[in-house]
């Protein structure tokens, strides 16, 4: 029996050896004694070879997994970036409206005016009248936390506990808290100065994006803010995640309780225009149905008062986005930051060089403007041909403007100007006049606007120099030389910024001079990335703590985690592919002149990239997207049909219309929300029509009136002619799993797809 065993083992060894060395096994007869002598060493050698084999196989497996993980990451990032492109499209749309659209009826005027919402930085008294909390009564049945002012540390901890119990703070307290926060923030300078000598260490957290679990995890690991524990929160507290308002409440509460220890920086998402698109507005309206509007209005005026940057020990600069070659800390310190309620508006009217504008949404003032030559809306107006014509025009404008102003003031009553010469305005008409008068001041305000946008929206890149950030549509891409220049100019050691999601929660670049810190773990999907925070002691050496706030993420193996994230990424990718079906078919047909329905891998990859412009490694992604035939060709027709079936669609809507909706869904949603100024979720049928017509004419989409009616018919709307646009938009979302559920399927707001 021993002999047979030996021969079995020997046999196995020879087979292995043949695989490894590629030779034919030697058939040799071995003597019993020789075999037994060799037995020990043979077994050892065999075990060695077997181990090598297994290790080789396993390492290859892990490498493939790593490749998949990176591809998935690339997919998420490129889709996120393309969402930001959508933002630019939307703003082009608004510019287009303003350039070319002369409202023909009062209804259209109203409609347009509602799209261009007002925004102003109010004085205390006005605000208190508008967003007063006294009238908001707290019912006896309310079981949530009660706040009394001035806030005490106990209140803040009580809030944290309450939110852990999933309670909601009543609107009365929210409004009061926001008022107090605003009052406090108004006293703060643009750049906060922090010193490590007061507290042992300073903890800096990056983007939270509405993920309360991550904030709880940070507090759990690092401790709550206290006189011994300083914190800097580097912007982007809201949007995307579902608990943005809770995060704000907690942060503001701690800010009021420990004003010396807690510092907040403004991020690019602390901006109501961005909130419209990325989900914060929606969240507030859902949670505070009656008073949400007041809260949102109040928030506009709190965000604009958030400081722009923090300087630690005069050596480390903490800001949200980055810097540009024009960044000047002295200039930044002098800007009146509260005037920039939203930096995005300025960008839209770049030609006018106005950082802020407000339109009187009061329908009555606008009829005046329509009787103006449409040039009033014309952005090129200020840069009109010759100065002489300008001065003539200016006089005429000034006259009419004065009248208009009087009229407005009488009617509207409380609209006061801020009292500054250069930047206040009540109506667009006034703005035009001021612009004509003081071109110089308008230039400096443009400069200020640029400073702020650069701080909040820029990204570091490895290439030298400073280019415009075309992907985000604002700020710039800054290189190591720009960083070096800024650091030297202000004698700094390094920069800390957030704004970009990083796999490990943090990342150094520019020769360890720029640190990106990102605190929202599982940002794209459960298991997609870790979050991190950084601690700085007096030696200013950064210490990192990483985490991942999801129990399931820990119990999954690497393989399962990657598969899950991958699934999510590919779902998003397939939806994008579906949205461009007709373009893809056109492009495929170019390569497939014989109309066989097949295409080579190379041609497929080239075609898909030329349509989607996502810059992805399509050849690596192919196995997860489309099957290949035995001959190595891809059947694109059946593939696109399968894609269409996957998307939940209404059968009686034509497929081209469906594509249009998918492609522009995020922009449409933003427009709807803007129109729906009372945040009720309903817009009238007429407005719906208007929107579609405007949008399609701008985007050069062919859309017949019948098409629009078909669309409307497929939506359940009340007999009174209102459309619940939430329903409409939900109908065109995929069914997807919400993070944390393994089996259950629910309609949730996708985090990455369209950015909302």
């Amino acid at each position, binding site marked *: 029996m021993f002999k047979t065993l030996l021969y079995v083992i020997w046999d196995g060894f020879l*087979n292995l050896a043949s695989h490894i060395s590629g030779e034919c096994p030697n058939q040799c007869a071995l003597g019993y004694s020789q075999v037994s002598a060799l037995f020990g060493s043979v077994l050892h050698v065999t075990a060695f070879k*077997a181990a*090598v*084999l297994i290790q*080789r196989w396993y390492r290859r497996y892990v490498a493939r997994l790593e490749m998949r993980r990176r591809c998935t990451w690339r997919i998420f990032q490129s889709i996120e970036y393309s969402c930001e492109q959508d933002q630019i499209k939307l703003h082009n749309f608004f510019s287009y409206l303003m350039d070319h659209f002369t409202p023909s009826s009062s209804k259209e005027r109203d409609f347009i005016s509602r799209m261009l919402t007002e925004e102003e930085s109010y004085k205390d008294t006005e605000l208190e009248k508008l967003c007063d909390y006294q009238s908001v009564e707290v019912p006896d049945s309310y079981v949530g936390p009660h706040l009394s002012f001035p806030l005490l540390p106990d209140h803040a901890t009580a809030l944290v506990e309450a939110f852990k119990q999933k309670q909601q703070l009543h609107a009365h307290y929210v409004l009061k808290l926001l008022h107090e926060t605003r009052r406090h923030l108004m006293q703060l300078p643009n750049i906060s100065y922090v010193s490590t000598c007061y507290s042992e260490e300073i903890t800096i957290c990056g983007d939270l994006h509405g993920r309360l679990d991550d904030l709880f995890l940070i507090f759990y690991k690092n401790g709550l803010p206290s006189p011994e524990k300083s914190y800097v929160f580097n912007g982007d507290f809201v949007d995307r995640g579902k608990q943005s308002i809770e995060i704000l409440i907690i942060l503001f509460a701690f800010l009021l309780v420990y004003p010396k220890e807690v510092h907040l920086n403004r991020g690019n998402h602390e901006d109501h225009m961005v909130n419209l698109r990325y989900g914060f507005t929606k969240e507030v309206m859902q949670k505070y149905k009656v008073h949400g509007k007041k809260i949102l209005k109040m928030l506009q005026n709190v965000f604009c008062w958030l400081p722009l940057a923090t300087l630690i020990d005069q050596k480390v600069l903490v800001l949200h986005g980055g810097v540009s070659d024009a960044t000047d800390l002295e200039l930044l310190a002098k800007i009146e930051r509260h005037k920039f309620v939203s930096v995005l508006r300025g960008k839209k009217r770049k030609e006018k060089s106005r950082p802020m504008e407000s339109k009187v949404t009061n329908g009555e003032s606008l009829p005046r403007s329509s009787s103006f030559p449409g040039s009033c809306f014309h952005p090129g107006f200020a840069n009109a041909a010759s100065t002489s014509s300008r001065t003539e025009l200016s006089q005429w404008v000034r006259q009419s403007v004065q009248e208009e102003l009087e009229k407005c003031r009488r009617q509207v009553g409380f609209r006061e100007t801020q009292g500054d010469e250069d930047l206040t305005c009540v109506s667009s008409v006034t703005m035009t006049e001021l612009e004509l008068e003081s071109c110089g001041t308008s230039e400096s305000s443009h400069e200020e606007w640029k400073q702020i946008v650069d701080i909040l929206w820029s990204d570091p890149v490895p290439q030298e120099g400073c280019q415009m950030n075309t992907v985000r549509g604002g700020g710039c891409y800054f290189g190591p030389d720009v960083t070096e220049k800024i650091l030297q100019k202000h004698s700094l050691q390094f920069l800390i910024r957030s704004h970009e999601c990083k796999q490990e929660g943090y990342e150094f670049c520019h020769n360890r001079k720029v640190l990106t810190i990102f605190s929202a773990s599982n940002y794209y999907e459960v298991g997609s990335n870790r979050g991190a925070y950084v601690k700085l002691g007096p030696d200013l050496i950064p210490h990192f703590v990483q985490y991942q706030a999801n129990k399931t993420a820990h119990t999954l193996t690497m393989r399962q985690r990657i598969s899950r994230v991958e699934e999510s990424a590919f779902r998003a990718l397939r939806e994008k592919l579906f949205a461009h079906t007709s373009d893809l078919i056109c492009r495929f047909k170019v390569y497939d002149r014989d109309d066989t329905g097949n295409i080579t891998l190379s041609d497929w990859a080239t075609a898909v990239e030329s349509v989607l412009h996502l810059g992805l490694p399509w050849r690596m992604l192919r196995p997860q997207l489309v099957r290949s035939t035995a001959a190595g060709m891809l059947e694109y027709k059946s593939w696109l049909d399968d894609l269409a079936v996957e998307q939940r669609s209404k059968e009686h809507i034509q497929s081209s219309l469906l594509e249009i909706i998918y492609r522009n869904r995020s922009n449409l949603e933003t427009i709807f929300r803007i129109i729906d100024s009372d945040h009720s979720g309903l817009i009238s049928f007429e407005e719906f029509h208007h929107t579609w017509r405007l949008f399609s004419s701008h985007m050069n989409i062919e859309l017949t009136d019948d098409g629009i009616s078909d669309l409307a018919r497929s939506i359940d709307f009340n007999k009174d002619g209102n459309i619940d646009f939430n329903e409409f938009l939900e109908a065109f979302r995929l069914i997807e799993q919400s993070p944390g559920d393994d089996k259950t399927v629910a309609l949730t707001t996708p985090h990455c797809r369209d950015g909302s």
Partner: protein
Amino acid sequence: MRYCLYDLVPFEQRKKVKRKDKSFHLSFPKKERDPQTKRSDIQKKITDAFEVFDHECNKTVDVREIGTIIRSLGCCPSEGELHDMLAEVSSLPFVIFSSILKFTKALIFSLLCRRPEYRPIPEDVLLRAFEVLDVNKCGHLTKEELVKYMTEEGEPFTQEEMEEMLSAAVDPETNTVRYKDYITMMVVDEN
């Protein structure tokens, strides 16, 4: 009636496409792609794989990641072989892949097509390897045995690699590695 080449084409494969000049265009079944296009396909695939790891978008990859890239393309070199490969390529911490690509493309190409030992290891061979390690022939390895072999024999695993393998391979109830099931699971996952 004139006979022409067209008549030699089997009926079901005939395809007539009307052109403006009303002539018929003959369509023959597509030929198998010639080796030239096949090679360029593989080259493009290799370039794609490198690009995924090109973080700074400047056509360089970290030399420590070349192993991962090569393996993800389907080759199974051992650590020793990889080390030899890289020693030839570059002594710098990063590698400009466009310049070494000429070298590696040829290398990878030969890896992918010719030398059988670099091909992916078939399931049955893998099974045999586990069986060799399973001295008692009981159909499973204990956790300790696996750790011992993987960290002491062959080209030893790092701590991290070992932990990762164990997390998926070990059956938590019996605390053993049922290698047959493990292999099946991993192979399915690959495809």
